[in-house]
């Protein structure tokens, strides 16, 4: 094998005068008889060889000082700006209104930069050598984020100060302030940007502009690759070189969970000290009444259930409260529309079906006996359909996760030492991959799933997960009693409560789960799969909804009668069974 590479090189060795060359692992020529290494290296003929990140960038003349081999000087927040822009563009392509990017996200970003003193401020948080222009910047041109224009000079250093600063320019990163960005002092203030914060910022902007993209939808889009996140730094312009410590900031190997991003968004809300959010109207699809309709459809539950969910929404008072984000300055609370809607559906089902492993099956048996036409909603049939579809969908998801490729085409390396071995490993990985791609004639890379709001597809078409049960009637579960629709089930169970420390306990689900009825646990798992959250998280939300429903004062005082065609209010008697006294308020 060596002969191919040393072919043509017939110089005698300087030490032993033999002509017997080999190529070592590093690509250097060495004499096989005396092991003398010479300076000649093997020319890489391998067509698959990727040169790595040190490419020659464009050389241009201008007032801005640029080093030809290193691009231009840039700051970390510039990088994040580009990434945010790309993410926003992706969302616009998916159908979000442009108002979200131009009016909301930009303003939030600028506010963030100001609050964290990275820009638009008189005393910037990073090195004082960089003179930054103040607030009299042009707000119109600032809206043009997509152009590498004078906008950048707001954030980057002026040309005059380059002489002194370039000597201090850190050699361990492509950006100017990566090392100070990561310093302990700045990290303590907790104001600095991270990749996860980009998602939190986008989530805040989405809520503000009342877009119907929930957090679970956003994270699903990120997971499926429609919104850039992992390896988002690859789309930065070429002049911005990423090296060294930049890797610690921009390289991510996981998509954060729902809970994490939500907490981060709340922290950001506090940091930015935003005023009250614009209210969420009842017609908006983010409102629980309408959002639950979407989840009901996805879970193949009958449309008649929606009425009961709306009743529950009004009873718990969530119809009004979610109309605005709480602006308590000490502890802002962001609503979790998606998780709340799912919890509402679960509690409604608990009211109607009991879900204690006995009642629902008895009701289902009765329905099966009574039903001649097949029009009634039968829980057993629904469960069988959903279970099969759920298992299939989970397997599909596991396979997709197994195939997912995380590493970028232009990887980032922490330090130079490991860079060479990583490049070599990457080459090997690519070779093995192409060999097996050829062998199996199946290219690597997840199939691009078309983005969809729904996880399942119910109906009669090809590729549907099963027949649709949306039109079934709930007559087997509810009856008319004194002209009022009442559920046949009249009991309600509640897990045991006890006092616990507010701050230290996160969730008691893992302890309680063995005691819960299996149907309920399965239902939690179904909705956790739909939203891609952990069952414990959803369980806590269910408890919160129940607490609201029990504590609400509305059901005693107000008796609202609607004039609509639908039957009047329900009078579901609930009898809570708390085993141990204290509730945690």
């Amino acid at each position, binding site marked *: *094998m*060596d002969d191919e590479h040393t072919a043509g090189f017939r110089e005698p060795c300087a030490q032993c005068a033999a002509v017997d060359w*080999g190529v070592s*692992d590093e690509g250097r020529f060495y004499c*096989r008889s005396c*092991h003398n290494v010479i300076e000649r290296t093997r020319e890489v003929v391998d067509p698959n060889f990727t040169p790595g990140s040190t490419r020659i960038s464009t050389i241009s003349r201008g007032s801005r000082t640029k080093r030809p081999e290193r691009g231009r000087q840039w700051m970390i927040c510039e990088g994040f700006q580009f990434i945010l822009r790309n993410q926003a563009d992706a969302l616009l392509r998916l159908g979000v209104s442009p108002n979200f990017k131009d009016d909301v996200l930009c303003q939030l970003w600028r506010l963030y930069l100001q609050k964290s003193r990275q820009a638009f401020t008189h005393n910037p948080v990073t090195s004082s050598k960089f003179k930054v222009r103040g607030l009299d910047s042009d707000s119109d041109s600032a809206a043009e984020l997509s152009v590498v224009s004078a906008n950048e000079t707001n954030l980057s250093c002026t040309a005059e100060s380059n002489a002194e600063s370039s000597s201090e320019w850190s050699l361990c990163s492509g950006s100017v302030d990566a090392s100070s960005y990561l310093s302990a002092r700045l990290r303590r203030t907790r104001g600095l940007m991270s990749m996860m914060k980009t998602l939190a910022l986008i989530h805040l902007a989405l809520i503000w502009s009342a877009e119907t993209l929930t957090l679970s939808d956003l994270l699903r889009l990120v997971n499926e690759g429609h919104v850039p996140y*992992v390896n988002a730094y690859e789309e930065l312009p070429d002049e911005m070189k990423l090296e060294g410590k930049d890797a610690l900031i921009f390289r991510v*190997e*996981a*998509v954060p969970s729902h809970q994490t991003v939500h907490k981060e968004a709340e922290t950001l809300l506090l940091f930015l000290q935003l005023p009250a959010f614009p209210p969420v109207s009842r017609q908006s699809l983010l409102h629980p009444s309408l959002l639950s309709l979407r989840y009901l459809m996805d879970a193949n539950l009958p449309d008649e259930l929606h009425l009961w969910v709306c009743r529950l929404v009004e009873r718990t008072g969530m119809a009004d409260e979610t109309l605005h984000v709480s602006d308590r300055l000490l502890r802002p609370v962001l609503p979790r529309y998606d998780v709340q809607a799912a919890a509402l559906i679960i509690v409604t089902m608990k009211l109607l079906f009991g879900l204690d492993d006995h009642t629902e099956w008895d009701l289902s048996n009765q329905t099966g006996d009574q039903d001649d036409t097949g029009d009634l909603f039968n829980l057993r049939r629904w469960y069988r359909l959903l279970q099969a579809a759920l298992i299939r969908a989970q397997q599909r998801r*596991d*396979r997709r*996760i*197994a*195939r*997912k*490729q*995380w*590493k970028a085409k232009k*990887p980032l390396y*922490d330090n130079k030492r490991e860079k060479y071995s*990583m490049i*070599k*490993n*990457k080459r*090997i*990985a*690519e*070779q*093995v*991959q192409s*060999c*097996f*791609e*050829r*062998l*199996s*004639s*199946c*290219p*690597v890379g997840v199939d691009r799933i078309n983005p969809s709001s729904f996880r399942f597809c119910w109906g009669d078409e090809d590729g549907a997960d099963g027949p649709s049960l949306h039109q079934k009637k709930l007559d087997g579960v509810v009856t008319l009693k004194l002209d009022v629709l009442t559920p046949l089930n009249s009991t309600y169970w509640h897990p045991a409560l006890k006092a616990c420390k507010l701050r230290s306990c996160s969730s008691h689900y893992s302890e309680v789960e063995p005691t819960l009825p299996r149907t309920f646990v399965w239902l939690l798992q179904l909705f956790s799969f739909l939203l891609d959250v952990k069952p414990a998280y959803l369980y806590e939300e269910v408890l919160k909804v129940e607490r609201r429903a029990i504590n609400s004062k509305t059901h005693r005082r107000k008796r609202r009668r609607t004039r609509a065609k639908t039957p009047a209010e329900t009078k579901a008697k609930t009898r809570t069974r708390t085993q141990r006294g204290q509730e945690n308020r």
Partner: protein
Amino acid sequence: MDDLEKELRPLDDLEDSSDDNSSIGIKKSKLPLVNPICEETLKETGFHRSTRGCLEQIRDALLHHRWQEAAEYMACYPQMLENTTHSAVQQSKELIWRISTEILHHHPNSRLEDYNNIYERMKHSGVKHYLMICLEHSFHLMLNGHIEDAKHQLSVAESWRHGKESAAQYQNTKLIQAYRSLLDYIIWCDKKFTHSKTDHHDTGDNQDMHSYFRQASVNLKEILKNPGVWDPFILSYVEMLEFYEDHEEALKVLNDYAYDDTFPPNPNAHVYLYQYLKRHNATDKKLIKVLKVLHVLVPSHELMLEYSSLLLQSEKKSDHQKALGVILEMLDFACWRGNLDVWKRLKAIIQKLQLQEDWKDVVSEKMAARKDWWPALHFTRFHASKDSEENPELKEVKASLTKILCPDLTLKYSAG
């Protein structure tokens, strides 16, 4: 009072322990636990989850022989090599090497180029596995008939040096040298074959052949000094030496192999020595000497027949008795039960022994230890019926011997 308590306490312990023994106690299992390779750790990033899931799918596909699916997942797995933790990368290199070759063995579309590609890549991926992968690669080429390529691979591997690493793997280096010499021998055989076919003697070819012989013999001589089981290498070396008529060296090599105490006991060594001596018309005495050791090692060896005939041919009476012992020991093993030649030889020995006066004592002495179980082994009614169906001649011979071997017992094995 304290003493009383102390005295009482041991009784309690006894009762408790007996309770434990009587009930189905929970005993700690002493079986070794398998270290799971696909284990979910606490802090797992999406990347780790993906690679772990991928490995699980590959493992599942391999166990169920779904080769196409395994190949598809194997295409997604190499991103593990770009992991930032070095220990995980090292482990995954070996995994990728072994799993890839396994998939290539079974996938219908695999070609030799794929093998070469994978072997070359994984060879240079790290220093720990370089020699092993070289060996495996050359084995694969050997098995597919590409002898020259195999030899080339091994020569490259032989000249590999990497400081401490190559010193630590010296056993692998020895293996590589040995197999390279074996390949030299194979090429030498080919050349000899073609050489003998052609009528005119091409000196160039001749030289070539001799050079291979020289290369092979130098290494083999070195290798064979190390204790071990080197059967195929010995045979090839001896064959080459015989061709060049270096009998002294051949004999020396074989003797060393057979009689060196540092080598593990190997009956084949004695077999080779015996065959060589027989080829070269050695004296009976020498042959008997070699076979004596073999008899101790493997009493059921097929050469024991020849041993017994050699002993029978000698003049000494003690040798005849020894022959009887040899044959009886052979028949102790069930594999020779139905062999006509062995029984015939036994009959011949008995006949020769009957020329002496005290033959009955000799026979009974030899049969003393066997009287309890030989009838069950050879002379039951089942054997009688089976032998009369399958091999009537054997039955005759055996029947004639029953009275002689076991005179006291009435056996159900009768002629007719």
